[in-house]
């Protein structure tokens, strides 16, 4: 979750970019890319698509800087762009049935040190179980409608505040909460078999 100070800093950076300081946008990208990419990855379930969406989000943000008014954080502003792109992508690709869990493997490869620590500190069984659990969760998430998936990612994956979600989705706060509850019910339905098995 973006800290208040960080959000304020990013908003200032975006204003600087709008005024001609192109280098400032690079810093915004650096600050936001991991969270935005992770959210895109959980939305679409595919690293390559998530990378494209993230990149597109930054490019569109750059192209539409004049619409940024500084009232929200840069991350929220970019997240709205990214979520709209992701939902649009999911609507176009409703037939997608497979789901990639390459993220876990790639992260392990990209972070050898972390992986080494994991291998030392966690038992092999735990690692396998976690990987299997993540796969099940991602499969279930992939079967949830795009709108529900977006709010689950924002709230439960990214830990965004209700107000931020409301700002991204442009929905009243109460509607965000009720939709979040229904989205969780939908996910529970998809996770039912896994939950019964793990109980």
């Amino acid at each position, binding site marked *: 979750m973006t800290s208040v100070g960080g959000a304020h800093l990013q908003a200032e950076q975006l204003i600087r970019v709008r005024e001609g300081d192109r280098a400032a946008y690079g810093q915004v990208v650096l600050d936001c890319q991991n969270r935005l990419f992770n959210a895109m990855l959980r939305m679409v379930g595919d690293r390559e698509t998530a990378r494209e969406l993230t990149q597109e989000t930054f490019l569109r943000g750059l192209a539409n800087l004049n619409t940024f008014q500084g009232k929200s954080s840069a991350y929220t502003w970019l997240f709205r762009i990214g979520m709209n792109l992701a939902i649009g992508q999911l609507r176009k690709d409703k037939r997608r049935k497979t789901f990639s869990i390459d993220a876990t493997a790639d992260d392990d490869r990209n972070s050898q040190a972390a992986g080494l620590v994991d291998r030392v500190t966690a038992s092999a069984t735990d690692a396998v179980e976690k990987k299997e659990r993540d796969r099940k969760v991602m499969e279930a998430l992939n079967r949830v409608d795009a709108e529900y998936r977006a709010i689950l990612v924002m709230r439960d994956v990214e830990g965004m505040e209700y107000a931020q979600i409301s700002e991204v989705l442009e929905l009243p706060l109460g509607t965000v*909460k009720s939709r979040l509850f229904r989205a969780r019910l939908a996910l529970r339905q998809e996770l039912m078999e896994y939950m019964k098995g793990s109980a």
Partner: protein
Amino acid sequence: MSSESDNIEAKLAAYIDGQLPESERAEIEKYLANNPQQAQVLRDLTHGRELLAGLEKASAPPEIMEAMQASLERAQLLERPVEEEASTGRGRWRQVFAIAAILVLAVGLAGLVYWVTHPPGIPKYSVAEMSAAKPITTEESAKTTEDAVNTGAAPAAPSTSIVIAAPEGAFDGAERMLKAGGATGGATGGALAASAPALAETLAAQPPPSYERLSLSQLPANTPAPGAAQTLQFQNSPSQNALTQNLLTQSAPTQTVLVTRDVNRARAKVTEYLASNNIAYEFAAAPQNGNAPQQNVNAPQQTAELLESRAQRGQNQVIIARRVPADKVNEITRTLQGRPLIVSALDQEQVAGAMEKKAYFADKVRDRQLTTQSTSAPATQEVAAAAVGAASQPATESTQEVDLTIVFSPEPATAPVDAPVEAPVLANEPAKVPAIPNEPATRPAPNWLKTKAGIQYEK
């Protein structure tokens, strides 16, 4: 869903997230204590929330930052607004792909249209390429005469050989090739063109030839002296190429190749003319394939029944008319042209277009004065006919006599028979009203008969 339900759902969502005020939280827990099923649902929802939160956090690949950096640097180098650069960044490749796709579609569509309008194997224009035909020069003619003398044959008379090609496509159903000229004494054996069926077999084993348009640069540059041998050749189809090749590779005197649907009738008409003009003739055997012609068979050995049998078997029939006065060649040719020639399933517009182009080249030939005194290279039937007429000018050639080999080639079995008749009238002949045999007299003449080439058709 009612607003009350929305409120309850909103409270439950906040309960799971631990964001309810204490009073409301106690109220829900009191309710759940009396409803274990609902309590289990909330426990499941909480578990799902934890599972999502427990997913590994993926790090962004470096390509994202690199792409953004490149985009920003490009904008700086090009001194373009960064927004413009961003807007063209990712979409550039899409635009390139879109343009490429449009081009591919356009080319494909053009190819399809061309394929439809120019079916394979039926080039639209029928004027032959002249480069492949090596004109027989005066020197070659002299050598031919010398060879004839050495082999005991009669001295060769000055010959004029003309190969006339009908429009391409017409040859699919009806091959017609006229070659008229001076004879080389009794050299009649083996001087036969291959029949269309035999040619089809021969050509089937050969690679398809390349088609080239006739150009003036391909016309014979030298102009033979009057009376000297010359060959004009219009190759415009595989079968026609082979026919021409056969004619050229054999020391044929004068030949006429005719494809007709009624061999016997055509033969009868020709022989009637020959007899009425006291012209001796004999029957000969046509080659059974496109390669080696058979030895001649004298006329007495060819009975009418045998000829009929040959016609029924789809074989050629050949008549060799001896010592035909040159001025009679034109008449015999005209007699032949009165026979129905089969035009296969060819678009009439294609025929008309071919005729127009042939007329165009004929004009060009005239411009170069290549058609005067039968010493030039006629490019159309008209011009060819003019050459024939010139060759039979009384002042110079009235005393000449030629041997005329006439090949009646049955229509290929696969050729359609419902096509109009093509029977050109040579130049200087009064135009006659086009008519189609076996067709109602009231049927209007097709447009392609009224071509700018000035070629008229008669029954």
